[in-house]
């Protein structure tokens, strides 16, 4: 079926429908673009995309199908998918399902045949913005795009966090993960080091501290960190009590807790090829990234800024001057993306071991 994509600023694209049907004729969300060449399944199932419509800049998507082991969450939370060409025949011994069937099963709609390069250039110039797509009339879509709030000011974390706590792994250490929208790959990395208890985002500091963990990981998650919900209130009590590692949204809420500032980026970082330099040894890691908000450089008191994005100078990581707290803006667990930054998990383990030894 012929679909149309209309952005909030009126820019229009044509394509055909893929994935779930749209009984109302409209799907809406904030349009962002992701530049990965592989890993569409991990991207689509990354809870951090809650509220967003993902444009893949690589034209052929779905080539190797989808499989149950590459999901980053129990289901996708994104609002839609925009591609240039959806594969028809998939080819991979790992494939269990066609991407189109997967999207239908999870009730995610998409649009294919779009000049995604034109769209990407438009977002690059005009910024990520709300949009709507579907078989509906242009006016209906334009109105839906304008009505769509985007990701600013919405508590998307509540939509994606786990309902109840669960445990993964059986490593020697005890780690509590605040699930702000955690990816499974992150838990897999942690589970190699620790027994990991994943708790809902609204879990109180007291509840967490009562389990006497060795450390806390603040996970990635969707949306505006200033709207990240209860964790913002709980953090002051947790900071200093035990080692904390923040990733992505976790990095941002930690910065806020220390008194830093965050702001929305023009179109964010979404890809698997972002160069980040460790300012301590000048080594460059190619990182997997997915964020629309960033911590403002120089805004966080009491920390040393340790990582910086070489493309645009965005702050990508810090360590507290005194407290056992560090954070990175990008995804050291990868999934999808390069494995260059796995060492942060070992670093977290060392920190926990050091603190346990000294206490």
């Amino acid at each position, binding site marked *: 079926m012929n679909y149309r994509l209309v952005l909030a600023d009126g820019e229009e694209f044509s394509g055909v429908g893929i994935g779930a049907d749209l009984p109302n004729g409209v799907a809406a969300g904030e349009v962002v673009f992701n530049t990965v*060449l592989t890993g569409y399944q991990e991207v689509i199932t990354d809870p951090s995309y809650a509220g967003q419509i993902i444009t893949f800049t690589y034209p052929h998507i779905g*080539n190797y199908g989808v499989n149950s082991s590459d999901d980053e969450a129990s289901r996708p939370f994104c609002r839609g998918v925009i591609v240039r060409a959806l594969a028809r025949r998939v*080819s991979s011994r790992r494939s269990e399902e066609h991407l189109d069937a997967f999207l239908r099963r999870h009730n995610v709609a998409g649009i294919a045949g779009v000049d995604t390069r034109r769209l990407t250039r438009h977002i*690059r110039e005009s910024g990520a913005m709300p949009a709507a797509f579907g078989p509906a009339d242009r006016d209906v879509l334009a109105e839906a795009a304008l009505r769509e709030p985007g990701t600013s000011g919405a508590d998307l974390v509540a939509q994606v966090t786990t309902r109840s706590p669960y445990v993964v792994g059986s490593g020697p250490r005890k780690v509590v993960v605040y699930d702000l929208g955690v990816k499974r790959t992150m838990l897999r990395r942690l589970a190699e080091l620790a027994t990991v208890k994943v708790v809902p985002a609204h879990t109180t500091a007291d509840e967490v501290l009562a389990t006497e963990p060795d450390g806390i990981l603040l996970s990635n998650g969707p949306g505006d960190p200033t709207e990240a919900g209860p964790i913002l209130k709980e953090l002051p009590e947790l900071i200093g009590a035990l080692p904390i590692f923040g990733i992505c949204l976790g990095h941002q809420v930690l910065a806020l807790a220390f008194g830093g500032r965050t702001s929305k980026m023009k179109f964010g970082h979404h890809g698997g090829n972002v160069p980040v330099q460790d300012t301590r040894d*000048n080594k*460059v890691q*190619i990182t997997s990234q997915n964020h629309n908000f960033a911590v403002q450089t120089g805004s966080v008191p009491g920390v040393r800024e340790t990582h910086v994005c070489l493309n645009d100078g965005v702050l990508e990581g810090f360590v507290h001057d005194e407290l056992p707290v560090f954070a990175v803006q990008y995804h050291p667990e990868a999934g999808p993306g390069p494995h260059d930054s796995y060492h942060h998990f070992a670093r977290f383990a060392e920190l926990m071991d050091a603190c346990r030894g000294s206490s």
Partner: protein
Amino acid sequence: MPKRTDLESILIIGSGPIVIGQACEFDYSGTQACRVLKQEGYRVILANSNPATIMTDPDFADATYVEPLDVAILSKIIERERPDAVLPTLGGQTGLNLAMELQNNGILQAHGVELIGADAQAITTAEDREQFKNAMQEIGLEVARSGIARCMDDARRVIQTVGLPVIVRPAFILGGRGTGIADTIEEFEAIAAYGLECSPITEILIEESIRGWKEYELEVMRDRNDNCVVICSIENLDPMGVHTGDSITVAPAQTLSDVEYQQMRDGSFSCIRRVGVETGGSNVQWAVDPDTGRQLIIEMNPRVSRSSALASKATGFPIAKIATKLAVGYTLDEIPNDITKKTPASFEPTIDYVVTKVPRWAFEKFPGTSGVLGTSMQSVGEVMAIGRTFPESLQKALRSLEQGREGLNADFGEVLLESIETATLLEAAAVPTPDRVFELEALLRRGVGIDDIYDATGVDPWFLDQMLMITEERQRLVGLSLDSATEQDWRRAKQHGFSDAQLGYLWNVSDAQVRRARQQVGVRCTFKTVDTCAAEFEAATPYHYSTYEDTDEVSIGSCRERVIILGSGPNRIGQGIEFDYCCVHAAFALRDAGYETVMINCNPETVSTDYDTSDRLYFEPLTFEDVSNIIEIEDPIGVIVSLGGQTPLKLADRIPPELILGTSPDSIDRAEDRERWNAVCARLEIPQPASGTAVNRESALAIAERIGYPALVRPSYVLGGRAMQIVYDDDQLADAMEQIAGSGSLGREGGLSAQRPVLIDRFLEDATEVDVDAIRDNVGEVYIGSVMEHVEEAGVHSGDSACTIPPTHLGSSTVAVIEDYTRRIAHELDVCGLINVQFAVKAGQVFVLEANPRASRTVPFVAKATGVALAKVAARVMLGATLTELGAQGLLNRVVSDHVSIKEAVLPFNRFPEADAVLGPEMRSTGEVMAIDMTQGLAFVKSQLAAGTRLPDDGMVFMSLADRDKQVGVKAAKVFVDLGYSIAATSGTAAALRNAGIVVALEVAKLEDSGGLNAVDLIDRGDLKLVVNSPRGRGPRADGDHIRKAAGLAGLPLLTTAAAALATAGGLRDWKRHPLRVRSLQEYHRRTSVGAPERNGAIVDDTEVC
């Protein structure tokens, strides 16, 4: 880390002549390296024997040695220049091997020269199969089961443990020479023996065969701070079993999930770290079992490779340039990304299009070869195409090949497959050949299932399904017509990559009609940008490709006058790097003169497709449709069609005539069309060999009766003497006509018709052939670039024959006649720009053979020999500059000649052991070398060395000559004997030699005679040091064929003409008196005279010295 300041001068070793497996990609990488090092302030010393390269232009290095790439010569260069370092990783396998030899011989250490980029240990770890395997296992990477053998006994032991089928790979070889797959023990014996012979260190790897697995390549870079990045992933459409250089390859990888891709990425980094490539680019090859996902590492090249060039063009990331910066100490984060200008080079390019590379082969030139692709590379060139999707990209690549194909079938070429039964076709497709991709589409069109085709061929189902989409689109299109197609239909067709020519075929109209109808509907192509980042950042670099999307990204902001230069397309025999050189020179000269330059080309190996060679680059097929699209958007003041060989010339009459710069298409036609050309010669009263044109056997025989035998037979509109033959009687002539008209490979290229008649010329035996390159300007002045005398007699294709500047045996009066004829022809044809004229001189009389008012293959050679950059001058002349003006600007300052320059052809017979290694009127060389020395003899010896033939100091010379060659052969033999060589000869030759008073040490039996030793026995026993064998016709399995083949296998110097024997003898004589001299071009060019159009540089008669 900043750049190293402890180095002052750096030696770069180039890759030498273009050979199969090592083409102009190393000119591209070497040129980038030279530029970078010069910009960084280092003194650059360059050694490369290939005159047709851009890198050997004297501007690109401080000292340019166009000298043989040989350890002894390089040692002399090092002694003279005392470089601080050698950068060995940009000159292909040749450069790497030579650097290793210099290291192993202690020469580098003796002169305190450091290897930068990769050290000897790293190179050995990567190149030595056993060390590599052990190193990979040590870091936990899986390699195929294998064993090493250094003799046949070893090989037989290894096969016991590895088990059949196996692949045999010789160590230290380039392009996979001598590699093969054995399914049976008999095959194994033969392949292992040949492999041992091919390896310079007599070592082979015998390995479990993983034929049919998926094949991938990752281009990896590493800096001194241990930062590693992947520049590009490549997936082969042809599964394992076909050399990657002979595979259709696609970037990025299409069928790997991220989990699998990251595993491969991690493995590639572990590999480059373990091997120890400290800085630079490496290429890591992987095989993946489609059923289990098992990943095996196949090999790694610790250097910039052919795939690096492809990856650079595919992504916009200049690997060679960055590798050079890394080698002198920078780290990736310190180098800006050229394309975005704002972001650093320490990232991984991401792309939003699909790149397809398709090789181009030349099997038709080597009768007797099977045309089956295998693990030894056989292609002579390649094209690359960019599309938004794989179907578009594949179709664009196939029409870029210029083999009469307009895309993936849906053209006249598909007819050949129609008569083949489906079962037979499926069997055919199971064998990898150049036609396989077309067979796959035909099978899909006949409804054969993807799974059945996959089972038979191993081509991944994703690729097959993408091809099926093309097929389905075709079937939809067949139901439409020019008038009924809607805008949406047009767009769909174009997005599937269908060319106007394919649509014309399907709808039975011309491509021009298709174009008009399409444009009326408003469907036009859009140009997108190659930007390394999938549009995430703004691109400052104008590198474009066409597709059919919503919007265009090309903006012509400049008010400078624009000139489009049409490139030369894929390398092929007869049209190679020389033409790219000319196009690049035009871009440089016109940019310097203030024009905006626009390049169109589809060959990823070239300097012309480097995005900073011209102001704008379009990576597009060189077809009427694609070129017209660019002309429309660029609105140029003109188009240069005469520098890129036949490729752009073929388009000339379809480009608006007012846009053609230089010589008019009509003048080109007057030279090309036989009857018009005859009229030109008659008018000018310039003698030609008698000739006629025939459209069938009867008319051919009638002409032969008139002009007499021997006769030269050649089809019209072909390049490089395609299918040209010399015939000596009616039977041979009838055979030749049969071949041209018949369904052979040439029939397929167009066959015989009134539009494509056969030209029959009286062949002048024992004539000296002469080439002239000249430039005429639009006020009628002519500059004679050079008169070149061929070493081989007329009848050997000029591209395959050695030639000399200045001429050494022509009297000055003959040279004057030749120059006069050249001027008159240039005037008569109203040439504006370059013209090449070929002459034959027989008994003092000069005959004109042909004239080509365009750049010739010899232009770069002449430029290097005389110091005048002909292509630059020609480009300026085409835009209206006069020779007088250019002379005043110093562009015609000519070297005062106290030396002799020789160009020698390099032939690929070692790749085609089945083909007869004999020279003839059909060109078969892939490349050339240049040698300069004090005398013709020394230059000749040097040219042989440069071409890979080390002539013997002493020993036995075998001679077996056709009757017509005996007179010259006697002269050669006399010199050999005087120099202390002994002679072995077959009976007839021996008799002729003895008649002339020459001692024949050994008379050799004919092969069919049972008594006595024959030549093949002598070769096998190692008794001979040099073989001179001239052919008597091209009969199958003649004696000479066996002898030449045996000599080839034994690696013996082989001369197939008496003229070459005489030149060799003269060379050996000079060499016994003087050692070879090593000098840089800059030194040769230092002494120049101011050139004037009508008074070209003096011809120095060096005959005395020889």
